[in-house]
């Protein structure tokens, strides 16, 4: 347990440092600091992966059960998604100023939660669990990426020729940022859809019904509908610019609530993945 916790703190430290580097790099227009922020983000993935590997070996399952594990999995995907994307297109690195704080908050929250390893209940013991969780994590990572870019878009739009426009000048042009935001939303929409579909097939196998309007199921559908509306207003109603960016900014916390908040707020047959009571 100690090794795992030490590694996890090391990961969190890397992410905090990365966040600070992004903030200073963008604020003082220091390209090197932004680059180092990206490096620190990628570096943090190593101890986090190692910690999760140690835990997997200890508890016998992946990061699926309990707030600590679920938030950890989400953080890992958010940082990896961002690091890979920014590595391939360095101009996106500055979006780390909005993305890495989400990772820090998630992992910081996880570090405050109980770290007791919870056993896999009979209801959760299925290969669908891996598919379902993997796509939930992928979807959330894509939504956070769209959130980060949308924040950058709004900041620049509000400071058309001002200080912040200058600070974020390394990002691609506004219309490209907007297009990228939409593409991340589209990717997240696909992953979230696969998460719902795999969940429905799994529910049918585990409980004999593919959909039961359970609060967690309902909220996952709500998130999908919110992003469907985003795509509709973008592609068919022609929304562009700041109001579309605000849409992406507001939608992401709803997806976070669906993943981490609903099992706490509502009684649900799915509640076990956070509380570890049952599957």
């Amino acid at each position, binding site marked *: 347990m100690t090794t795992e916790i030490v590694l996890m703190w090391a990961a969190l430290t890397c992410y905090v440092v990365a966040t600070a580097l992004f903030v200073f790099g963008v604020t003082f227009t220091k390209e090197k600091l932004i680059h180092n922020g990206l490096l620190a983000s990628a570096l943090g993935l190593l101890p986090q992966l190692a910690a999760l590997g140690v835990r997997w070996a200890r508890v016998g399952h992946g990061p699926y059960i309990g707030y600590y594990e679920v938030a950890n999995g989400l953080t890992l995907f958010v940082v990896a998604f961002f690091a890979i994307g920014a590595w391939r297109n360095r101009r996106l690195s500055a979006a780390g100023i909005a993305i890495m704080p989400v990772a820090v908050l998630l992992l910081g929250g996880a570090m405050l939660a109980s770290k007791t390893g919870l056993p*896999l209940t*009979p*209801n959760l*013991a*299925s290969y*669908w669990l891996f598919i379902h969780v993997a796509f939930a994590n992928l979807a959330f990572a894509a939504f956070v990426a769209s959130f980060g870019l949308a924040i950058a878009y709004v900041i620049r739009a509000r400071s058309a020729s001002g200080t912040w426009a200058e600070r974020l000048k390394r990002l691609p*042009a506004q*219309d*490209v940022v907007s*297009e990228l935001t939409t*593409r991340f939303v*589209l*990717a997240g*929409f*696909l992953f979230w*859809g*696969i998460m719902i*579909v795999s969940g*429905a*097939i*799994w529910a*049918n*196998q*585990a*409980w*004999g*019904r*593919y959909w039961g*309007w359970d*609060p967690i199921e*309902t*909220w996952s*559908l*709500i998130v999908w*509908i*919110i992003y*469907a*509306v985003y795509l*509709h*207003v973008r592609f*068919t*109603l022609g929304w562009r610019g700041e109001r579309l960016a605000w849409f992406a900014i507001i939608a992401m916390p709803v997806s976070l609530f669906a993943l981490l908040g*609903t099992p706490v707020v*509502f009684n649900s047959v799915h509640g076990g993945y956070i509380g570890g009571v049952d*599957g």
Partner: protein
Amino acid sequence: MIRGVLRKVVAFLRSAGLAAGLMVFVGVWSMLATFVPQGDISNPEVAAWASAHAAVEPFVRFLGLHQAFSALLFRLGVFALAVATALCAWQRTRVALARMQTLKEAAIADEASVSAVHDLEIVCDPGLSATDVISRTADTLEHLGIRTKRRGDVLVAVSRRWAVWGSPVFHWGLVLLILAIFVGGLQRSEGLMGVAVGETKPDAPASYGTLRSGPLHDWGRVHRSIRVDAFDTDFRSGNLDRGPTPTVSVLDAGGRVIKKQPVYPNSPLQSGSLTIHPSEFGFAATLSVMNASGVEFGRATQLIDISQTATEGTVPVGALTVSNEAGTGQLSVFATVPMDRVNGQLALPQERVARVSVRASDGRPVLDRVMRPGEEMALPAGDTLRLDSIGFYARLNIVDDPTIPLLYAALAVAMMGLTLTVVARQQIVLATAIEGENGLRLVATLRLWRNVPTNRNEIESQLATALRGDEEDVS
């Protein structure tokens, strides 16, 4: 006139604004529904919420939010959304067909056709040759993420024709999904059936404790029975404790076993459209009645549920009725199995005994005794009640839904369409260099529909820079 009105209605239902509005309605309605307890007013949770929120309760009840997902308003919204989705799918199909034709024509475009029809012209640096222009254009486009092929003197980057089908396939998948759910609701039967170990019950409405059956579910065509062969309270498989697990058999009309297996979460028994899952389990006490001569004339099994709130941890499911041999003097028999308690929690009893209570037809208690299997108890009319055995029973969740494969097919189609929408690029880029009155010019046709990593403005400005000429858009 009727055609005109119909056209307006279709246009309204097809409008993007209505589709977005309906999605917002379904989303907001669903959100509200998660904060309002679901069920009818007899549900204690609903009743408690209603009294705690007396001010809004009439409004909530008027809207039907206590049974939000079967409420008329919600159904109407979903129906309208389904119609809008179908019309949208049709519209997208027409767009896809048109784009396919455009892609087909673009795929065979040559220098003459691009020279004749284009939407971008850039006057090039006089020092550049046609080969330089083509080469620089290819490099610039590649830098922007568009890889071109050279066909003669024309640069070509044209998507494959199937690339345009993502969105229509996704929308048709959704329409198919809604249809599958609707048809499933008409066809599906789902219910809970309690079966004691060793007992066989016909798959018929009378065998179910609770049952929901669609109007098109034809019970007359169901000729099978369900048997529970064994019950293991700690079944292990794959190095994992699967919990209480019954072994279930499905038998055909002739009593032959069609399928038999242990049934536990994530491992249901599937036979055709039938799926059997474990739901709960309890005890099954078998009792028989004998006359004064010791001849047995009745035997029945009492199902007993485990209950956290019951004093001894179990409650009987209904009651058994015992008559004398002549069929008169009815008595009600209730049996429970007292559970053990370990650290305040209910636990299966080390020794299984039954508390058997007998009541007269007016409800008056007649007898109450704790019995072990094999023990007998004299009834007031001279007959004898014997506890034959105490075993387990499994409450099975039995679903018969032939539309599940259709539903899965719809989900697969929708996801394949969505994947195509996300990954497939929809573009036409054709460019060539032509000699004109003002010297060498780059002429190009650009159609950047979906998933192109750049945009028209960026292409135009970068090409203008690369070719060092004046930019002129003729679109």
